[in-house]
């Protein structure tokens, strides 16, 4: 059953949630919109294109301490970081919610990542259906849709004078404000998006592995980490110790397979030394290794890498090109 909430209802509700939860929501920072824990509901932006960074950072922060090392009289104790509070992420678009669901595969696979698991189970996701798609969006080719409720606890859809509220999970139901009226009207149709031939290419990836295409497209790649850091499904990390004024912590931070030292071992061996090999890793992880390991393609079609790559390596174009390469191969 769908319910209805006016914008004021939603704002009041967020205010209530803020009392007991950390509320992470899209806010404006300079010219950009980004997910952050809010201190007041007034800061929340309701109408926005995909945020600068995805909300994955709540579960896999750019940097976090895994444990701190305490020494007492020569005795060492490791004190793991604790998750202190319940949280709500408000306003995730369906693609970002799917991104989180995809990250569950590696992180919740046993032995599960304790911090990730804690945050994940103590965080409710309130999604916001997209009434408009951006030219870089292609979620419908990647297993989601602008109105996809599958990976959130509650989905809001903007209707006339307010929001249609759909509680998807029990966790979502428990979180709903009391006294919302039933919504009997129609739910507005989602925007249409152009299709990308994902399926054909995913099934041909093994044959494409040694194609010269990778070196060609990698020519212009700068091997920065932008595409990985803005991506809701990239999850590579580095772990090192941080020692400062007697304080010692094991820290983990984001990293990306595009960065030059990523796969270089201490002994000096590197399985991927050319630009093409490195860029191929990115696409093969998303379109081949991850699907073989966890069934799904590790892209949700949010378009952030398309939007932010400084040299326009556009994953949709890469997929289309790969399809052409496959066709040319089977044709000849």
């Amino acid at each position, binding site marked *: 059953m769908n319910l209805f909430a006016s914008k004021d209802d939603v704002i009041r509700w967020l205010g209530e949630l803020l009392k007991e939860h950390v509320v992470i929501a899209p806010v404006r920072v300079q010219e950009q919109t980004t997910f952050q824990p809010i201190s007041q509901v007034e800061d929340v932006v309701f109408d926005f294109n995909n945020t600068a*960074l995805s909300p994955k950072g709540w579960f896999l922060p750019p940097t976090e301490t895994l444990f701190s090392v305490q020494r007492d009289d020569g005795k060492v104790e490791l004190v793991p970081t604790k998750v202190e509070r319940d949280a709500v992420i408000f306003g995730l678009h369906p693609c970002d919610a799917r991104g989180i669901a995809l990250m569950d595969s590696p992180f919740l696979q046993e032995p599960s990542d304790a911090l990730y698991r804690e945050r994940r189970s103590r965080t409710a996701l309130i999604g916001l259906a997209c009434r408009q798609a951006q030219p870089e969006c292609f979620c419908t080719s990647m297993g989601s849709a602008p109105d996809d409720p599958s990976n959130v606890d509650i989905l809001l859809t903007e209707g006339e004078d307010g929001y249609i509220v759909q509680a998807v999970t029990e966790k979502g139901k428990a979180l709903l404000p009391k006294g919302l009226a039933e919504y009997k009207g129609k739910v507005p149709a989602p925007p249409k998006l152009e299709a990308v031939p994902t399926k054909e290419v995913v099934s041909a990836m093994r044959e494409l592995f040694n194609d010269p295409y990778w070196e060609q497209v990698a020519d212009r790649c*700068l091997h*920065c980490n932008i595409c990985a850091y803005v991506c809701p499904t990239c999850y590579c990390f580095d772990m090192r110790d941080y020692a400062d004024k007697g304080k010692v912590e094991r820290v983990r931070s984001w990293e990306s397979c595009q960065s030059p030292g990523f796969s270089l071992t201490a002994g000096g061996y590197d399985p991927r030394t050319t630009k093409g090999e490195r860029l191929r890793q990115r696409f093969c992880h998303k379109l081949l290794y991850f699907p073989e390991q966890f069934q799904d393609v590790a892209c949700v079609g949010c378009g952030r890498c*398309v939007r932010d790559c400084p040299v326009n390596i556009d994953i949709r174009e890469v997929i289309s090109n790969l399809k052409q390469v496959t066709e040319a191969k089977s044709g000849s």
Partner: protein
Amino acid sequence: MDKELIQQIRDKARNLLKEGTVEGVIGYERASDDLTSRPLFAYSPSDTERLIFDETCAHNLVKYLLDKKGKKIAVVVKPCDSRAINLLLNEGQIERDNVFIIGVGCPGMVETNWNHKSETLQAKCRTCQLFKPVVYDFLAGGEIERQAEEETYSDITEEEAKSVATRREFWLEQFGRCIRCYACRQVCPGCYCPVCFAERLDPLWVGIRIAPEENDMWQTIRSFHLAGRCIGCNECERVCPVDIPLSLLNRKLEKDVKELFAFQAGLDPEEAPPFATFKKEEVMEFEK
């Protein structure tokens, strides 16, 4: 789009490839948004049909010469980018004989993002005093006539006037957003150390935390490594995904070097930057 200019670039590129003078031509082509542009690596004469040039061709393609060392390559170069060629020649990173420079006179680049093109000229272009490249082998389209504002560094003097505490607060806020994606480094023609200090573990210069203090350290050292070497292409600021105003740092250092040493990077291939009066052999030594 200046059709004639583009034709000249294409003709030149095609001939260079046909005659075998170069192995490849690095230029610009239309991006996937059908509006802005992106680098193109043309290896066959037919690829050259995709070459374009217009006010969205912001990328400094000189950076890519570092990937193509030892190969004969032609590169399309704007006046500002051409200073990077002098920088790299001076620092022994590229060989003049291996590079064929297709210079273009430049009307100025506008602010762009994927699928967005504004009418406003980039700030660096408003004050750019170069109307043709400082070094080239072929000049497509000839020299351009246009008006440029004077570089007054007024924004820098304004910053300088603020208290240390205010400036510190401003920069910590800015660097607090940095995600250490290193795009600013990867795009910069002056950043080519085989192992950047930011990734060097022994000795450790800056930890892996993506947090204001480390980010601050990262940007402080980055900008100082470019003091007197930054050629002002402003590519670093353009690619920063979180819009950190790196030009304020770079231009502050540029201004100081200009005032102290009467030097501007990349104008003359013979004159070494003031903090870099080392020899090529020493550069190699440092890189080890």
